[in-house]
Structure formats: structure tokens, C-alpha cells
């Protein structure tokens, strides 16, 4: 079942990739890429003031058909993962494991399974992909390859979270980079090729550090294996010797770049700003989670002793990320950059929770498991909320062809639906009670206060700043007088409304009724922290 969830989209991707070769070649001149001008002159567009502004072209019927087909395929993994939820027993170990020998000479096998950590994340990933694929986007005449890449990315991303073998994990890790590189480069705007390259180089450097660390762990294990369950049992490296610290450093670099933690975050803003909106949603919702997932799944689980030793510096980095991300976001005038920096801030919360959970203290197991559960919920919540926010930014760009917030204003009058979903998403992101973000952050900070009060208190400042910056964002976009040129500003289409509505439904759902989700995550977090 899990294997099918990984490979259905990948196989479908191959079919989609082959599609346009036959169908689109004759007389298909791609529309010129309408690049977003980052700094438009506010008065320049005045003449077309009252004209109805053009929406993203719905595309030819064939493209719409392809999109519908891709959305259907993308829904298959979600259905399979839901089935996996139903069969999930919360035993605390890996369940529904499927194994196939692959390269026994190196101790590599194809092994997938779920536990209380990977199941919620994989489900969230599958859901975000459906939303991203179903969202309208300028396809630039390459519908087949766009949906092929999207489906391919969905398969490898789900595979990464389900992989129970470090080798397999790394394979999916690298493939996700390649997929995202082409997605940004080919369908991005602005200086897309450069942003894509920066993204690729940064994260690929991280992944090579990760590769060395994986090899270090592999060579230390006895018998040599890449099997995650065995490595967790063996604990091949403990303590803070040079070898263990180097391996820790390798893993840390790989995951910190991907997460990203300050000061390894500089690839993120350009990649986000220049990527097409659905790709941004996936980058934030899915790819960043790979980093935080690695912190928990590998560093915390396989090297807890070393982790405990370095937990305080890690917590400090997390708090710096929280504050830095929030402050820089506050200063942004570009909508998408703002959302990108709030991602840095939110990933800081996650890492704070993980660091606190891994700290070597005794008698605080309850607080620590609370923080870990909170961190995992934050990963899920951030995926949905920030995914929605990035999709919204895409809709704004399609209507106003700029991300500069000062150009807009008073849109609440014209676009009620857009205003509504943005308000919900923004409040969820700043941690309003009753929404998913709150459930996560309250647990992280409650846990952190119990274990390391100074870190928690400084971190709380971040929430304050986030609240301020989101309120300012809403004010700049939707309140105040409506400029004459936006009088024809169209509201969300049905397609956009349905996708965003579904995402925000789950944000509210997790906020109101988190019990089942928390149970599953607790089944992983409680015994896990107790064991350290």
C-alpha cells in the first residue's frame, strides 16, 4: 500500500512526460513569459484603471484535462495513506513495513513503513500536493512536463517520509532537489534560472554533507547496515568523540540548510520569490519539512547522546531563527518574501521543540515529549498554512502582476473571498487559538518552558512580532481606500476557492479537533523521549 503511494505518481509522471511530445508540437508557440516586474511604478498603469484585469488564462481544454487527470492521480497516495491511518495501531514502532532486498552487498534494501512521526507528515505532504497540482498556474505551453514534474516530486517526497533505509532516504532526498530545480527554473519568473541554481547548489552541498554523515554512520554500524530501525537499535555512535561529532556535524549541515536555520537560510528567499506559486507551496510545505524530519528521525533517534550534548547550541540557533525570521519578515514590502521569512521563523519553532526534546535532562520527560509532539504538529500545520499563503500570493500576482504590498490596498471591498481566506491563513500562521498553528506552538512553548525557560521566553517574542507583521500585511493588502486601478480586481475563481477552502478546512479541523492527530504523534513521541 505504501509502495503504491510512492510509485503511482512516479509512474504517472513518466506518462505525463511523454504526453506533450506527440500532442503539443504542431503550431504550439508558447506565450512569452510575463515576468513580474519587481518594482513597478505605481502610477504607470493608471490608463487601464477601470478595465477588467486579465485573470490567469484558464488554459486550453487539453491543459485543463491534463490538470484534472494529474489531480486525480495525485489523490491516489492520499487515499492510500488514509487507509494506512485506519490500519495504524499506535504501537510506537514502525508499522506496515514492506521490505525488498536491493543492494545486499552494501547492506541496502528498499524498506518503507510508517510510525507516529512519518504518517501525519506523509499525509500532509500528499494533501499539499493535490492542492498545488489543482491550483491554476501559467503553464507556458508545457503542461505535460509541468504535471509530470509535480507528480514525480509528490512520489519522491512521500517516499522520503516513508523510507526506513538511509540509502533510500538519500535517494529520495536528492531526487526532490532535482525535481524542484527544474520546476523553479522552467516555470519561475524574475531571475528564475539563477534562483534555481542557488537553491540547487546550496541544498546539494547540504545533501553531500549528509551523504558523508550517512557513510560515517554506516561504517560505524556493526553489522554494516543502512536500515533505520536497526541503526536506532544499534546506536552505533554515542558520546562526543571526534568521529561522532563529525558525523553529527554532517547531518546537522544537511538538515540545517534544508530546514533552513539561520545562518543557512540565504537560498530560501530568492527560491521562493521566483518560483511559481504551487512550487513555492511545495517548497515551504514539503521540502522544508524534510530537514526538520531529518533532525528528528536521524539525529535525535540515532545519535541521542550526541544530540543531547549539542542541544543547547541548537536551541539557541532555533531561537535566533525565530527572531531573525520574524524581524526580517516585518521589514518586507514584498508579499512573497514576507511569507518566505515567516517560514524561517516557523521552522525555528520546530527546531526549538526538537532541541528541547533532545536535551539531556532527567525528570522532564513529560515536558520533552510535549515539545516533540508540538514540533511535529507544527510541521503539519506549517505545511498547510504556509502552503495556502503561497498559493494566495500566486493569485495576487496573477491579478496585480506584482508582489509589492504597497501597490495594493482596500481589496476587501472588491475581493471578499480572497480577503476571507487570507485572513484565516494569516491568523492561523500567527497562532490564533482554534487554528492549527496554536495547537503546535502552545505545546512547543509549554514544553520548552518546563525544560529551558530562557530559550522559551526569548522565543515567545517571535510570536509577538509575527502577529504584528501579519496584521500589517492584512492592513496593507485589504484595508484602506481602494486605488482606482484595482477597481476591476477580480475575486478568487471557483477553482482557487475550492483548493484554498479545503486546505483551510484542515487548518481549522486540526485546531478544533486535534485529538486523533495528537494520539498518533504521541504514540511516537512519548516512548521516544522516555527512552532517551
Amino acid at each position, binding site marked *: 500500500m505504501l509502495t503504491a503511494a510512492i510509485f503511482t505518481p512516479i509512474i504517472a509522471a513518466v506518462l505525463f512526460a511523454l504526453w506533450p511530445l506527440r500532442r503539443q508540437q504542431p503550431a504550439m508557440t508558447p506565450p512569452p513569459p510575463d515576468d513580474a516586474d519587481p518594482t513597478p511604478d505605481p502610477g504607470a498603469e493608471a490608463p487601464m484603471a477601470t478595465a477588467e484585469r486579465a485573470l490567469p488564462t484558464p488554459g486550453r481544454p487539453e491543459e485543463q484535462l491534463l490538470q484534472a487527470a494529474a489531480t486525480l492521480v495525485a489523490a491516489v497516495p492520499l487515499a492510500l495513506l488514509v487507509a494506512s491511518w485506519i490500519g495504524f495501531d499506535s504501537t510506537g514502532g514502525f508499522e506496515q513495513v514492506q521490505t525488498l532486498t*536491493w543492494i545486499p*552487498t552494501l547492506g541496502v534494501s528498499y524498506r518503507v513503513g510508517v510510525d507516529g512521526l512519518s504518517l501525519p507528515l506523509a499525509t500532509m505532504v500528499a494533501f499539499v500536493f493535490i492542492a498545488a497540482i489543482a491550483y491554476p498556474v501559467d503553464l507556458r505551453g508545457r503542461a505535460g512536463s509541468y504535471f509530470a514534474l509535480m507528480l514525480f516530486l509528490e512520489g519522491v517526497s512521500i517516499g522520503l517520509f516513508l523510507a526506513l533505509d538511509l540509502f533510500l532516504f538519500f*535517494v529520495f532526498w536528492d531526487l526532490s532537489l532535482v525535481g524542484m530545480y527544474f520546476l523553479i*527554473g522552467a516555470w519561475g519568473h524574475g531571475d528564475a534560472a539563477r534562483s*534555481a541554481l542557488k537553491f540547487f*547548489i546550496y541544498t*546539494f552541498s547540504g545533501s553531500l554533507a549528509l*551523504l*558523508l554523515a550517512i557513510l560515517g554512520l554506516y561504517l560505524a554500524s556493526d553489522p554494516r547496515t543502512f536500515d533505520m530501525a536497526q541503526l536506532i537499535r544499534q546506536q552505533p555512535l554515542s558520546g562526543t568523540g571526534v568521529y561522532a561529532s563529525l558525523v553529527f556535524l554532517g547531518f546537522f549541515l544537511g538538515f540545517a540548510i534544508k530546514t533552513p536555520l539561520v545562518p543557512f537560510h540565504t537560498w530560501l528567499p530568492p527560491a521562493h520569490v521566483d518560483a511559481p506559486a504551487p512550487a513555492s507551496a511545495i517548497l515551504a510545505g514539503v521540502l522544508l519539512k524534510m530537514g526538520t524530519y531529518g533532525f528528528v528521525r536521524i539525529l535525535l533517534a540515532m545519535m541521542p547522546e550526541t544530540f543531547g550534548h549539542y542541544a543547547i547550541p541548537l536551541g539557541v540557533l532555533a531561537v535566533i531563527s525565530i527572531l531573525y525570521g520574524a524581524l526580517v519578515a516585518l521589514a518586507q514590502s514584498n508579499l512573497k518574501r514576507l511569507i518566505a521569512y515567516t517560514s524561517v521563523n516557523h521552522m525555528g519553532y520546530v527546531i526549538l521543540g526538537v532541541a528541547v526534546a533532545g536535551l539531556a535532562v532527567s525528570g522532564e520527560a513529560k515536558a520533552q515529549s510535549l515539545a516533540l509532539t508540538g514540533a511535529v504538529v507544527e510541521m503539519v500545520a506549517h505545511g498547510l498554512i504556509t502552503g495556502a499563503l503561497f498559493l494566495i500570493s500566486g493569485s495576487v500576482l496573477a491579478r496585480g502582476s506584482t508582489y509589492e504590498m504597497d501597490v495594493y490596498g482596500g481589496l476587501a471591498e472588491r475581493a471578499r473571498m480572497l480577503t476571507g481566506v487570507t485572513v484565516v491563513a494569516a491568523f492561523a500562521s500567527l497562532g490564533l487559538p482554534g487554528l492549527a498553528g496554536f495547537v503546535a506552538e502552545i505545546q512547543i512553548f509549554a514544553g520548552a518552558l518546563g525544560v529551558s525557560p530562557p530559550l522559551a521566553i526569548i522565543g515567545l517574542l517571535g510570536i509577538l512580532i509575527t502577529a504584528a507583521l501579519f496584521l500589517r500585511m492584512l492592513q496593507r493588502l485589504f484595508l484602506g481606500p481602494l486605488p482606482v486601478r484595482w477597481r476591476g480586481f477580480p475575486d478568487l475563481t471557483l477553482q482557487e476557492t475550492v483548493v484554498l477552502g479545503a486546505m483551510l478546512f484542515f487548518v481549522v479541523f486540526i485546531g478544533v479537533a486535534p485529538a486523533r492527530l495528537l494520539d498518533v504523534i504521541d504514540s511516537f513521541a512519548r516512548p521516544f523521549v522516555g527512552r532517551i
Partner: protein
Amino acid sequence: MPGVGAASLLSLAPLWRDGGARVAAQGAQQGASLLRMSTDIVPEIVLAGGAIVVLLYAVFAPRRWQEAAPVLAFVTVAAAAVFSACMLRGPASLTFSETYARDGAAIWAKLIVLAATAAVVGLSVPWFRTDARQGEYYAMLVFSALGAVLLAGATDLKQFVISTLLSSTTGFVLAAYHRRSSMAAEASIKYYLLGALTNAGMLIGVAYLFGLAGSSTLSGLKQGLPEDNLGVAAGAALVIVALAFKMGAVPVHAWMPDIAQGAPAPVAAFITSAPKVGAFIFLARLVLALPDGLDWRPLIAVLAALTMTLGNLSALWQDDVRRLLGWSAVSQTGYGLLAVLALGRAQLAVPALLFFLLAYVLGNVAAFGVVVELRGRTALAAYGGLARGRGWLAGALTVSFLSFIGVPPLAGFVAKLALFAVAIDAGYTWLAVVAVINTVVSIFYYVRVIAPAYFGESERPAPVLGHWAGLATMAMALAVVVVGLAAQVFLAAFADARLFPM
């Protein structure tokens, strides 16, 4: 097979000294043993015979029939490959008075070289179709493949000298096959001068080692060489430099980018692949035969670090794709040396070396194949928008480059993984880190070609050469994917492969 010929002459020598019936009986016995031994070199005999047949055909067949020459060459190569594959079942042993090995490493090296040669024959068909001298070209190509094959099997210094010379001499001719091209002339002159220099050094080095050990076989060297001796170090260094020339390693790497750029593109694909395989295998054999007191690992480590770094840095701002491929080939040699370094220290060193060679050769021939199929187009700017009209070629180029970078699940990834693992296992973690940094650097120049191919625009699809070259290119690119996915098949086979004198 001059080396083998010499050995057989020696074994027949007593015939002249003795007389009578005993001699006849002994002669029959000798003949029988010669026959038995010659079963160990069937692929080599097939290659030599086939090359001669191609040559005679080229000389005597009328011009309009010349196009059958590549068919003959391909059949020869395929037959040699089939015979080699059959030898995988037999036991590993030394043959012809310990001058030649039929071990797993030699046979797999043969198969890799022959696969590359077969693909190059495919690439050459449309490229040389209008060349009046195309028949002789294929004869020369098969002889050159024979040189690389013999080099991989050599376990004797004299055998090594002869196979190196066979491989080099034919290489010089192949590189200059376009007589009117000044680029080709410049490249082959450079190749020749460096080759002549290092080959002369090689002869001196071989003389030293032979003299000090009293034997020219590698097993003889292992027993006979004095532990702590400057002469041994000097002799070994001279031989290693000659091998570095064949591999394109520092300090005698300079010919590689020139050949890649100037030689006929199919020849460039061949010369940057096949001799490298033979040279790597013989280097591995040689270092294993050196006395324990001589610490050769630091030398190889420094060569590896310099080679990969220099290759990568030089490739960075190349605006000529063929030259870029040449520098990339240099840097790949640097990675491969990690496996040589780990010999005797890491269990997986030999499999890592063989897998690297396989992945490298497939990816390299595929990349050059794309250049050939695009009629040798070489300006970086001309690759913009390639994916729009020539999606398959852009795909092959991407697969090959991503494999060079080491992106899973392609063959290059497993190769790099194995190389890093054996280097760390052998205690050379710093070199693995250098290799990783180099890999990051290398992304820049590979992406400089791939990105415009996908993100750029082009007016009309690029003109291509012909379906034989396209077929060979696609086969190689497909092999890069398949070998990566089915890595176990090869790793398991390589793990059983012996490498004399181990």
C-alpha cells in the same frame, strides 16, 4: 600480441636444442599447453584477428562497399565481448608464465572497454560516412581497444609496455584522423608529445624495477623488490606518471581537454574512456605489487586531490561544451583514484573501482554521443532550448551529467557512494571531503549546460546526424539509469572479482 608471442617463443625454444623423438613428444606437449593457454586470451585473439580482417577489407574492398567496415568492426567487438562474458565463469588465474591475468577485474574491464568501443562504432558510422578512409579508421579503433584490453590484463612490466604503446600509438592516429583540421592536428601533437615524454619515462622506470627485482612479472616484483630503496620509488613514480598520462591525471592531464575539443567527436569519446579503464586496472595491480615499506598512498592521494580540483576549476567557465567534457573527464579521474587509494585497506575497493569505471564510461560516451548526434556542435550558447525540439538528446545529456554529479538513482551515484565509503574506510576522510567539495563545484558547470537546454528558447530543432549515433547515445544513457537501479547485479559480480596480485 607481441608480449604473448615472445612468451610462446621462449617456451618453444628447447625444440632447437634437443633432437629426436623425445623432442617431438615434448613439442606436442608444448603445443598442447600453448593451445590450452590460448583459451585464456580468446577475446584478445578475436580482436586482433578482427582488426586485421577489417584492415584487409578496407584495403581491398571498393569504395562503395566501405560502409560495411563498421559492421565488421562491430561484429568483432561483439564476438570478443561474448567470449569475455563466457570467461566470467572460469576460475581466476595467471597465464602465460604469470605475464597475463584472466581474473574478474580484467574480464570486467574488457567488457567495459568493449561496450564503449561498440557504442563508439555506432557514433562513428554517420560521422565518418563521407570519409574516404573510413575502413582503416575502424581497424585502428579495434586495435586501440585491444591495447586498452591488454593493458587491463597485464601482470608483467614488458606486457604493460607493449600494451601501453599499442594503445597510445593508435590513439595518436585516431586523434589526428581529420588531417585538414588544425584543431585536430594541434590536439594530437599535444597528445603525442606528452605521450612520448611519459612513455620514455615509463621505459626507464620499468628498467629500474626490472633491474632491482630481477623479474618483470608483478608477482616477481612483489617478492623481489627491496623494501627501502630510492630506485624503487623512482621507478614506480615514472611508471605511475605514464599511467597518469593514460588516465588524464595530474601532472600529465593537459592533453585531455584538447583531445575532447579537437579530435573527431567519436574519437574523443573513445580516448577519454577506454584507455582510462586499462590504465586504472594496471595502476591498481602495480601499487599492490609495490613493497610494503614504500608508502605510495600519500602520492596517489595528492594526485587525486589535485586532479579533481584542477579538472573542476578549469571546467568552470568553459564556453565550449567539448572542452568542458574534457575537463570533466579529468576531474572524474581524480574521483576514481580514491578507489585505488583504498586498495588493501577497504574490502570494497575493487568493486568500487570497477563500478566507478563502468559508470564513468557509460556516462562519458553518452555525453560525447549527444555532441556527435548534434553534429559536433560545441558552443555552449548553441545548446539553449535544446529540450524543446530534441527532448531525448537533452534527456540523455541530463542523465549523463546528473550521473557525473552523483544524483541517485543513476550509476554515478552508486559509484560516488562506493568511492566515498572506501576512502573513509581507508582512513582518507579528508580526501572524501575534498571530493565532496569538488562535487559541489562541479554542479556549476554541468548546470551551465543543462539549464539553458531546458529553460532557454530555440528557433527550430537542432539538426542531428543520424539514427545510428542517436541509438548508441540513447543506449548508453539508458545504461546509466539501468546500471544505477540494478547496482546490486554489478556490485555483487564485482565483489567476487579478483585482482591479481592480491
